[in-house]
């Protein structure tokens, strides 16, 4: 669909379909418990694969920005965020389809001991330079999925059939309700980051914390990621990017409504406004 940095040689397996052991080059990921459990890792993928992911990002970004929903371009339609987002389609075959792989999904679940449904929503996010701090929030909103699983069983969100936050787009479509189980933010296609540049993901111990007083941060360093479980306490926030645009891929895993109710009760679940 999009140009990438380097086309695979005919007959060779594309990097994004290679065994994870050959493309996940950093095997020392850090698990932290404060202010809530999260994983961070730098230099995650091999340089070749990272270059392909970043090139795919640039190719989408080159199509421009839209302030209305546009499936082909970055659009500003997100709840809790001022970012422009482009949703990765369920039939994606570009390097970004790496994030729809079953083995990656299962590894992420294992890291935080999460039982996820296999429903995945993934999108590219673009914050233009000068975006302000977001609001401190958690991700326990009801989400909706129709069933269009890929060959390995991962079921990506299909926004053409079903709005992620409000449900089916037409009456004849049936959708399931799930709740976000975990969030992964992979940073890519950013300029070199320095302290003071902003654009970090802030983590908070309290919903009343000031956005500019995070308990911990994940800076937008290329080829790094932060991954955390969605719980009643996983408060986080985008921090204003003063120095340059801030780009990322955001991936959400999901769990059943019943499990969330069992763990924390019905009241923690909300509907997106």
């Amino acid at each position: 669909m999009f140009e990438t940095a380097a086309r695979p040689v005919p007959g060779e397996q594309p990097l994004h379909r290679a065994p994870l052991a050959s493309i996940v080059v950093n095997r020392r990921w850090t698990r932290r418990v404060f202010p809530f459990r999260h994983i961070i890792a730098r230099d995650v993928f091999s340089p070749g694969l990272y270059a392909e992911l970043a090139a795919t990002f640039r190719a989408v970004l080159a199509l421009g920005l839209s302030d209305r929903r546009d499936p082909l371009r970055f659009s500003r339609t997100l709840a809790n965020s001022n970012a422009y987002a482009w949703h990765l389609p369920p039939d994606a075959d570009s390097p970004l389809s790496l994030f729809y792989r079953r083995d990656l999904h299962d590894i992420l679940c294992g890291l935080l001991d999460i039982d996820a449904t296999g429903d995945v929503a993934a999108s590219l996010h673009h914050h233009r330079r000068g975006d302000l701090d977001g609001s401190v929030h958690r991700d326990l909103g009801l989400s909706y999925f129709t069933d269009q699983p890929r060959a390995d069983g991962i079921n990506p969100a299909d926004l053409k059939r079903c709005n992620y936050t409000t449900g089916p787009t037409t009456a004849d479509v049936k959708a399931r309700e799930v709740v976000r189980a975990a969030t992964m933010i992979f940073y890519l296609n950013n300029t070199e980051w320095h302290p003071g540049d902003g654009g970090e993901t802030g983590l908070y111990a309290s919903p009343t914390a000031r956005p500019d007083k995070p308990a911990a941060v994940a800076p937008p360093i290329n080829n790094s990621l932060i991954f955390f479980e969605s719980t009643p306490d996983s408060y986080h926030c985008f921090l204003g990017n003063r120095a340059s645009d801030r780009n990322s891929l955001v991936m959400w895993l999901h769990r059943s409504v019943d499990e969330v109710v069992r763990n924390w009760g019905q009241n923690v679940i909300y509907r997106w406004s």
Partner: protein
Amino acid sequence: MKRVCLITGALGRLGQAFCDAYADEYEIVGVYCNSTPKAAERPETVVDPLDLDRRTAARNAGPFLIKADLTADWELERVVELALARHDRIDLLINGAAVWTTGFSLADESRMGEFERLMSLNMLVPMKLAALIAKHFWRKEKKDGNTIWRRNAVNVSSTAGLQVAAKSQDRFYSVAKGALNHLTAHMAHDYAPLGIRVNAVAPTSFPRVIGAADVVKAIVGIDRGTCNGCVTVVDEHGTRIHK
């Protein structure tokens, strides 16, 4: 299956000694507030994403630490929710968090705020925390489940609360610990219908007179035993039930 222990004051001398000695025996959820974790691997561990034993590696990485100011009610709720979310149960509650002040007069009006905070953490928090666990888990457990699992709470008191000593420099502290001893007896009575035992351990000064390990050993002894409503004294003369 390991017993799940929720311990407050997890990074104090007592909590650290417990975590060091019994991490293999208990799944520990540790609550801390002011102390700085002394070992980086406690709040931060390294994992290999491609070689992860899902059921063990994630959980055996040491105590699961939660930073919380327990004098805030919403933080108490958060601690119980997180502990139960992680392990589904709490078998042993060790109320180890405490503050200590000394050397000023009860006639000094300007120190009353400190007294209120000390009473809150040293006396009210153990009561509130146990009640929240009962609300969210112990009361919902199946019939006899709490008895079968030998679930119990241990309040960490002090010998300072065992006798009235008007000239003691530990005024506020001894008042709070004395109240905690009385509270323990009443909690034991009120939790008995749930199958939950409640006891206290009253150590003398540690590590000055006895070792933190002695206190930890006494706590584990209470957890393994059957006593209810008892105050176990630990001092230079040994470990015994206070008469």
